[in-house]
């Protein structure tokens, strides 16, 4: 057959196939629109969570399937939708585009770029709601996820695949911890997803430019549902972020995802639920607000080798009102996660930043993921600090304390001073170990409390300059009597030079 014949045959075939396409569409009619919610009749075979196409190319999600009507939320502008409009079924459950091209971009809750750098070309779609990986696909958390914050890495270590809640009042540095954790993932072969839920657009812009400046956008995706966008976008965005994270985890990558913050998502879901006439429960949240967060956070996982060995570490953020962690949503999320980082306002204003409450913060699984050197030097730290807090409160009332108590209080003050760390300055784990070791062995005891920061810097620059091989050994996670002795020798050497 000649080339022309071939072309004719192919084209003919195409034409024949094309002519067969009579599209069958199932439609419904809008009978009510209000506050981003519609009720429709028709849509006979509509599924739960199905995407619906409204006039003007706006999508919605069917949430309430009732006897005669379907209730849906509209994702986007709903002002042009009116009674009698035709709504089409798409037959797809809500899904978002995912892919490597997403890295370095800012997208909205439906995966469309909003950073002004053009469309994102991706081939794959992931459903936003997916059942979490089962028991057989998982393995225990065993690799550390270093945040670069001394207080966290030493006291409440986080492992890859863990879910660690960051909880605290407004203005206590919750986002700062999350951003520092992203910055510290540089060169760690991690992908980061930052989900901003109902945040100010200016805050998201500031975070994006900060990450860009630090070169962290090379491995970060930002999903943003702004405060001005309708509630369904805030409701949807964590699931969108999770779907994007799952794409990378399925490829065997380690992913860090931050939900900032889930309180706002719960508010958005409460708004939607009330408008959809679902019965309100405690604090007017619907009955399934627990499931809202548990099904999201359960998708964080550490997959075993058979399933690619990827992981998703989740750092959800919850904002409390007046330090009340026994409100409905905070208690729910505390019980779902593997521990919490509790930040307090008065610590923050006393200058202890990060404003970590050591007593109330825990990590239930991260301990097994801590590196050996860190485990050794930080082992007694938490207990020492807790004792110090108690003694300090006690010593306030009595002026004369015995020398042993005084020494403990003095040590505790230095410890607290050492754990202070400014924002955007994550510290590598080996330097943390050296610093905490020197503290524990009493090398800082002879210096004034106010000069701790400088002294620590001096010690670390001494180590970086002349003991780099030792630092490398610690970074590898080796720790035995020999390394301990050589770190001790090095500290002695430094102390003499002072």
């Amino acid at each position, binding site marked *: 057959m000649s080339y022309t014949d071939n072309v004719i045959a192919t084209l003919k075939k195409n034409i024949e196939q*094309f002519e067969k*396409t*009579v*599209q*069958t*569409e*199932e*439609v*419904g009619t809008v*009978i009510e629109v209000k506050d981003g919610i519609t009720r429709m*009749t*028709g*849509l*006979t075979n509509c599924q739960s969570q199905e995407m619906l196409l409204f006039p003007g190319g706006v999508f919605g999600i069917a949430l309430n399937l009732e006897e*005669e*009507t379907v209730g849906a939320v509209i994702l986007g502008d709903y002002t042009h939708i009116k009674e009698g409009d035709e709504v089409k079924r798409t037959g797809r459950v809500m899904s978002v585009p995912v892919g490597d091209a997403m890295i370095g971009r800012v997208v909205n809750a439906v995966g469309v770029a909003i950073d002004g750098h053009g469309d994102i070309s991706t081939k794959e779609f992931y459903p936003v709601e997916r059942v979490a990986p089962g028991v057989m696909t998982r393995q225990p958390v065993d690799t550390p996820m270093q945040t670069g914050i001394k207080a966290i890495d030493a006291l409440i270590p986080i492992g890859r695949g863990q879910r660690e809640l960051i909880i605290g009042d407004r203005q206590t540095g919750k986002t700062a911890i999350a951003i520092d954790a992203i910055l510290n993932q540089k060169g760690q072969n991690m992908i980061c997803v930052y989900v901003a839920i109902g945040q100010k657009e200016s805050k998201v812009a500031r975070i994006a430019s900060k990450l860009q400046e630090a070169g962290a956008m090379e491995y970060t995706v930002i999903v943003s549902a702004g405060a001005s966008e309708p509630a369904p976008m805030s409701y949807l965005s964590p699931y969108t972020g999770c779907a994007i994270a799952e794409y990378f985890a399925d490829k065997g990558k380690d992913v860090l995802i931050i939900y900032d913050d889930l309180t706002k998502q719960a508010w958005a879901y409460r708004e939607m639920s009330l408008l959809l*006439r679902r019965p309100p429960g405690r604090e007017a949240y619907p009955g399934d607000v627990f499931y809202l967060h548990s099904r999201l956070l359960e998708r964080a996982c550490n997959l075993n080798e058979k399933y690619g060995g990827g992981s998703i570490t989740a750092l959800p953020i919850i904002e409390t009102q007046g330090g009340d962690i026994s409100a409905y949503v905070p208690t729910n999320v505390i019980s779902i996660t593997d521990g919490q980082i509790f930040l307090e306002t008065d610590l923050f204003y006393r200058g202890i930043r990060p404003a970590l409450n050591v007593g109330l913060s825990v990590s239930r699984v991260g301990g097994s993921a801590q590196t050996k050197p860190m485990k050794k030097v930080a082992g007694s730290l938490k207990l020492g600090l807790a004792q110090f807090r108690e003694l300090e409160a006690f010593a306030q009332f009595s002026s004369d304390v015995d020398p042993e108590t005084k020494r403990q209080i003095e040590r505790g003050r230095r410890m607290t001073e050492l754990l202070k760390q400014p924002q955007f300055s994550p510290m590598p784990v080996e330097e943390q170990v050296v610093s905490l070791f020197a503290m524990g062995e009493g090398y800082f005891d002879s210096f004034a409390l106010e000069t701790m920061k400088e002294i620590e810097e001096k010690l670390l620059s001494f180590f970086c300059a002349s003991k780099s091989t030792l630092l490398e050994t610690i970074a590898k996670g080796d720790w035995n009597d020999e390394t301990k002795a050589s770190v001790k020798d090095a500290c002695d050497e430094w102390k003499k030079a002072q």
Partner: protein
Amino acid sequence: MANLLPKQYAKILFELTDGKSGSALERAVEEFVKFLIDQRALSKKEYLMTAFKEYAKLQQGIQKIVITSARELSQKMIDEIAGLFGKKIEVETNINKALIGGVVVRTGDTILDASVRSQLEQLQKELS
């Protein structure tokens, strides 16, 4: 309780009046009107009557189809299309130039779209 839909009112009215005549029918309608007043739905009576007519036809096994085409169709063609959907068919026709060619048939909540416009749209989607 949310307001009832026209379709639901239509069903109530149909069940009340089905097979009745004379004073019994009058009594049933009276009761239904009282119910409408109770529900504050009397002002919606036009919508209700349209819905009732449709519902009654559906109950008698008459199916309604709406054929939309770009140009006026011959009666023969309409009959041919209607014949594909069964025997008791009521046909409504519309003209919509934007379809360019072909027909769109709607039965209940299902639309069969065989218009040139939708095929062009699909072609565009496949090519992009």
